[in-house]
């Protein structure tokens, strides 16, 4: 399931006095089975970019190919793309509208024509996967806490068994345990089913730990597209665009500046602990 974006340009309010260019000449290849992190300052174009990937926004110029097919061809089935490329929106709780949690999660699968039993199995499975217990299945989504709503929204997309799963800041507003739980869940879905995951995040720590490839977007342009370990060496440039490096990476960098022989490229707490112990002999 590959997705290729070729020189995508997009303007909001094109042709009006408010015209603003949100994406500038974006070219990207998303092959099968990667876990990709997408970071950038607020307003850099992350949400605009991912909405191109499932056809919700149409580029002003450039092409997108899904498995080699041009998605802007007249006979391309856009509904198919929407199903295969599942998108969990930035404020997914705004999409919850059914009277109960289970009805909300059932909406997607039912809408795409799954029979009742299959849809229910998919919905229950998805709710279980995101950690929503049976006690909440018949609750109204509006009475859930912020974090509970988020999980329900993710379950709604998971229930459609997408091949590419794109999540726009899915862990914003989750408690630390919930964040880890969702990230591990994404990793598991990615590893077990080979699903491509694209994770938009403002947490440098999270993308450092989970992403295999990190795309940095700045004012509508791709600034870096590389392994996280390489991207996070560009400390000054990242800060200039409103980003950071993970706290543990900053710590080992400061220790290395002091002359300690620690590995500056540590991306996780585990790596930092191991490297500090090794360099100091404790």
């Amino acid at each position: 399931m590959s997705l290729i974006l070729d020189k995508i340009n997009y303007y909001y309010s094109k042709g009006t006095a408010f015209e603003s260019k949100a994406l500038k000449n974006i070219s990207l290849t998303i092959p099968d089975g990667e876990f990709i992190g997408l970071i950038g300052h607020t307003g850099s174009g992350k949400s605009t970019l991912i909405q191109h990937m499932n056809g919700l926004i149409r580029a002003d110029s450039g092409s997108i190919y899904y498995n080699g097919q041009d998605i802007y061809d007249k006979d391309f089935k856009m509904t198919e793309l929407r199903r295969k490329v599942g998108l969990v929106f930035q404020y997914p709780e705004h999409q919850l509208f059914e009277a109960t949690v289970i009805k909300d999660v059932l909406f997607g699968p039912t809408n795409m024509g799954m029979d009742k039993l299959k849809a229910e199995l998919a919905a229950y499975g998805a709710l279980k996967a995101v950690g929503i217990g049976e006690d909440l299945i018949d609750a109204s989504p509006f009475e859930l806490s912020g974090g509970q709503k988020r999980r329900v929204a993710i379950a709604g997309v998971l229930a459609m068994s997408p091949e590419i799963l794109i999540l726009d800041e899915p862990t914003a507003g989750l408690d630390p345990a919930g964040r880890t739980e969702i990230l591990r869940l994404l990793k598991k879905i990615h590893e077990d089913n080979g699903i491509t995951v694209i994770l938009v995040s403002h947490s440098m720590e999270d993308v450092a730990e989970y992403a295999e490839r990190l795309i940095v977007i700045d004012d509508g342009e791709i600034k870096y597209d590389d392994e996280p370990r390489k991207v996070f060496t560009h400390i000054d440039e990242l800060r200039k665009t409103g980003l950071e490096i993970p706290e543990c990476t900053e710590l080992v960098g400061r220790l290395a500046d002091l002359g300690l022989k620690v590995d500056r490229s540590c991306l996780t707490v585990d790596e930092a602990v191991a490297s500090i112990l090794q360099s100091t002999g404790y």
Partner: protein
Amino acid sequence: MINFDDVTFEYIRRDEEGNVESINKALDGISLDVKKGDFIAILGANGSGKSTLARHINALLTPTEGTVFIEEMNTKEDNNLLKIRQKTGMVFQNPDNQIIAGLVEEDVGFGPENIGIPTKEIWERVAFALEKVGMTAYREKSPNNLSGGQKQRVAIAGILAMKPECIVLDEPTAMLDPKGRREVIETITELNKKEGITIILITHYMTEVVGADKVYVMSGGNVKLSGTPREIFKEVELLKEYKLDVPQVTEIAYRLRQKGFPLSECILTIDEFIDAVTNR
């Protein structure tokens, strides 16, 4: 200035006929006292009751049992409402939902105008508030073109213009990039230190809490732990039971210490860590 006396709050769900379908006890016997000028941080799992507690501070909700006093004013008495809401402003998570007007200065002046402040004073308040959040240069710009962090600072300015004594921020940084997060935390820290404004900060980012005077840890509708950040974050294992965490550097120091690495207990920041290592 904020006093919760054995406060319980229940969300009650009713069916179409008005019969009670379910009762959800979101606060369960909370007592706490916040002094004027304190910087309080509230941590807790999703659903632990943080937002419900926050909504009691400016009387958006009132207790099912028990009492909440804001400077001796009972939030249950209707004729206190206006005063309480003016004294305690709220900032929410989503920066886009809090902007109302077409220009930054109009947005900030909206609150004071609404309560009938004379025009001249409104403009003085707007100028003061924008200056305090470092957004004076954007005064005549459209809020829509600001970054998330800037929008939140405008939202904070809108509250400042009401001359509050307390600002309650319910996950104000959850939707922001790292720079926006830093801007917001620096802004509220400065308002607390320089203007003496009481701050109640709810967050899921552990690092944002290290500068607070006091941290409350909520679970199941109650406050389970309270203390200084250092007292709280030394409970590395206990916090995990409450679905929380510690800053990465605190975790690293904790694990190194377990291996015999000579570090003082509970390091909260990178600077502290570096100091500890260089003074060794």
